[in-house]
């Protein structure tokens, strides 16, 4: 197929409409929806409401919870560790604090556990990829903090609970919003390069569902800048980290119902290690790589919901896993980058979303679930989308508006990552709009935690995307970074305190036996095993001919 500056001729025709309507649209403001209108749109068009995609969970303390089949499949599965295969008498690793996950939440927890007085050698971070490989490093657009008048933590709170459809754990939202400015100051002290004016004031932009400009950013590399600074600091403080080592099962005390460490798996040699810990933090992130409803995802390679599975094996309660976040603007064209994120900051900086005729059909900054539903309706109900050569449909994100609004060169300056991603496939987003469609982005729900980031099981703490409650049924942009900073810190502090007043337990896998009994009692017959650790994208033909020998 012949491409003209990255697009086939028929897509170019639609781009001409976008260009023609642009001068008029620059002055046009699309109205926002009321609560009732939002709810109706979601009911009709949001993937969460598609019939036949979910079922109730049959076992465990959150029995009856409705969630996507892909989630239930991992919970109604055999634990991969069999008690008879592990020798628990030999403790390979003995620490005060075990942190499972090396993204933003895990590293923040480690740094604050040090502040609380733990020694580096008494902490261990384990991660199945490398330290920092995570969804945290991929977040682009920014982080919210209500840190200048007339904004306030109250306003931030109200925006959050409205975005979450009033289902959030409000105690957690209070902590999130009241701690936010403090975390910004902490990052400044660590040497983060925030976008600022010459006086040091934060440059703050709009986010979907916010009622004021509150988005702090570091160009469109916000997550990468934060993660690389946190990682540098973790290495400076010499906290030990085992990379390519996954937690495959938690350990519980033989006598008491509390978590006392984990069974780890060396991903390369496939040998296990028994890691005993006085306190354990799950900071394992989300579930994009289990591809809910077959959606492509913005998530990193290891986002397979391991933490939720491990927590459920030991009896921790879960919430809001029925609500999945689809980011409204994933790349829909070309094929190489389908599903990758085009940050909401592009809309926060003024770009509109328009259909193939070049007309707006939704306010560009509705909360994410609402915006996504409107795009799906435009493409598949009103047939106003642009079809790609591989049969996808998408709408235009009018990126050249950034140049019109903020001057020549503004797009590349503000969005170097997006600019680079599109340049590699021959498209210049400063000149031409980009085609977008919702993509699987975030696990809104997860493990229940309290104000001390404790799960419902003693000795087990959790922070970040693996938890549920703070965002309710829908997270707003800029609150995931904030979530892992605020609750990573709280988890680190309280897990350290807990560890200081606890003696090491006697590790057992009694909960695995109990879990197997529950599966049997519920009549679940399956060969599924979990956690799955990594997705498998090998070609079908190769797998069909594979003989497992080595």
């Amino acid at each position: 197929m012949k491409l003209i500056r990255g697009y086939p001729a028929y897509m170019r025709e639609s781009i001409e409409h976008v260009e023609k309507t642009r001068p008029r649209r620059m002055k046009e403001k699309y109205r926002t929806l009321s609560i009732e209108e939002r709810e109706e749109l979601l009911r009709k068009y949001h993937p969460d409401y598609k019939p036949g995609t979910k079922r109730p969970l049959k076992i465990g303390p959150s029995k009856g919870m409705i969630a996507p089949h892909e989630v239930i499949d991992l919970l109604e599965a055999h634990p991969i560790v069999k008690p008879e295969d592990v020798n628990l008498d030999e403790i390979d690793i003995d620490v005060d604090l075990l942190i499972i996950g090396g993204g933003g939440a895990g590293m923040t927890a480690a740094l604050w556990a040090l502040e609380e007085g733990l020694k580096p050698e008494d902490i261990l971070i384990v991660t199945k990829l490398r330290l920092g490989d995570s969804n945290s490093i991929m977040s682009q657009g920014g982080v919210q903090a209500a840190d200048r008048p007339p904004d306030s933590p109250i306003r931030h709170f109200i925006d959050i609970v409205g975005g979450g459809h009033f289902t959030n754990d409000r105690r957690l939202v209070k902590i999130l919003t009241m701690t936010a400015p403090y975390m910004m100051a902490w990052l400044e002290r660590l040497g983060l390069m925030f976008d600022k004016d010459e006086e040091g004031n934060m440059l703050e932009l709009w986010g979907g569902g916010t009622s004021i400009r509150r988005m702090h950013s570091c160009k469109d590399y916000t997550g990468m800048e934060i993660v690389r600074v946190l990682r540098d600091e973790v290495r400076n403080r010499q906290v030990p980290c085992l990379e390519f080592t996954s937690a495959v099962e938690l350990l519980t005390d033989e006598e008491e119902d509390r978590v006392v460490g984990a069974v780890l798996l060396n991903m390369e040699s496939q040998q296990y290690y028994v890691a005993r810990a006085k306190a354990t933090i799950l900071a394992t992130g989300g579930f994009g790589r289990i591809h809910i409803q077959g959606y492509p995802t913005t998530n990193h390679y290891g986002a397979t919901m391991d933490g939720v599975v491990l927590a459920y094996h030991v009896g921790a309660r879960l919430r809001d896993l029925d609500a999945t976040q689809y980011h409204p603007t994933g790349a829909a064209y070309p094929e190489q980058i389908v599903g990758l994120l085009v940050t909401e900051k592009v809309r926060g900086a003024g770009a509109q979303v328009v259909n193939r005729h070049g007309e707006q059909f939704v306010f560009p900054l509705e909360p994410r679930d609402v915006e996504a539903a409107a795009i799906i309706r435009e493409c598949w109900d009103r047939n106003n989308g642009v079809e790609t050569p591989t049969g996808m449909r998408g709408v235009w994100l009018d990126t050249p508006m950034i140049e019109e609004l903020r001057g020549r060169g503004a797009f590349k300056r503000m969005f170097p990552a997006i600019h680079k991603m599109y340049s590699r496939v021959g498209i210049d987003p400063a000149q031409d709009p980009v085609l977008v469609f919702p993509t699987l982005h975030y696990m809104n729900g997860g493990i229940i935690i309290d104000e001390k980031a404790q799960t419902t099981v003693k000795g087990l703490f959790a922070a970040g995307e693996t938890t549920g409650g703070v965002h309710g049924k829908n997270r707003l942009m800029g609150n995931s970074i904030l979530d892992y900073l605020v609750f990573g810190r709280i988890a680190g502090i309280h897990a350290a305190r807990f560890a200081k007043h606890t003696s090491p337990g006697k590790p057992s896998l009694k909960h695995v036996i109990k879990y197997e009994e529950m599966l049997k009692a519920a009549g679940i017959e399956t060969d599924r095993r979990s956690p799955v650790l990594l997705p498998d994208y090998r070609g079908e033909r190769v797998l069909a001919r594979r003989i497992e020998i080595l």
Partner: protein
Amino acid sequence: MYHNRDRLPLEANDLPEETEGRGETVRIYIMGKEYRVPAGLTIMKAMEYAGYRFIRGAGCRGGFCGACATVYRKEGDYKLYTDLACQKTVEDGMYLVQLPFVPANKAVYDIEELRPEPNILLRFYPEIARCVSCNTCTKACPQDIEVMYAIQHALRGEIERVANMTFDCIQCGLCTIRCPAEIPHYHVFQLARRIYGRYILKPARHVRERIKEIESGKYDQEMDKLLTVSVEELKRIYENRGRIEE
């Protein structure tokens, strides 16, 4: 209801049968061994299509983490190329090898005790003085950073300049593994950026003022009310909060 997305090729293993049968393919050589893969895939997806399952060499799959640094040559071309496997599209005749790890020493320091002095980068990384200005690092950079110039600025102690020109660094290490002077560029740049962020960029005064307000209890009463009001009341508050355009 809305659409059925079953037709979307999600990842390489989901490519429809007709793509495999009739579609265009290219030859790639993974560590010297030939495979035929569909055209238009990224290097990462092509390797998976060929049967590789990554443990190392795959991270974010979106161009942000630097885990999938890849080196390649093309048939009949003497040059050695570098890119990210998750971002670069396969081309016919590529000889590929991944670089899943880069050994490089990182200086250990206490950010609180540093000062933005001109010699500070040189003090922690004296090897930057070994730069021979060959520019191989710049050519190796998948992020198009002027790596060699940044090292020259680092030598001259121009912290602000180094910080800003290396902001897009994803720390993949390709520069470092190609450098004949054995400089760990990406660690040098990290130090420069942290010193710049900590000591040269001004701290936001409004953040400190807000923290003081929060600590003084200014929002406590209103916040506690929000914790207990009914959902109906909360909806009313939400609908009436107004949008503040400034």
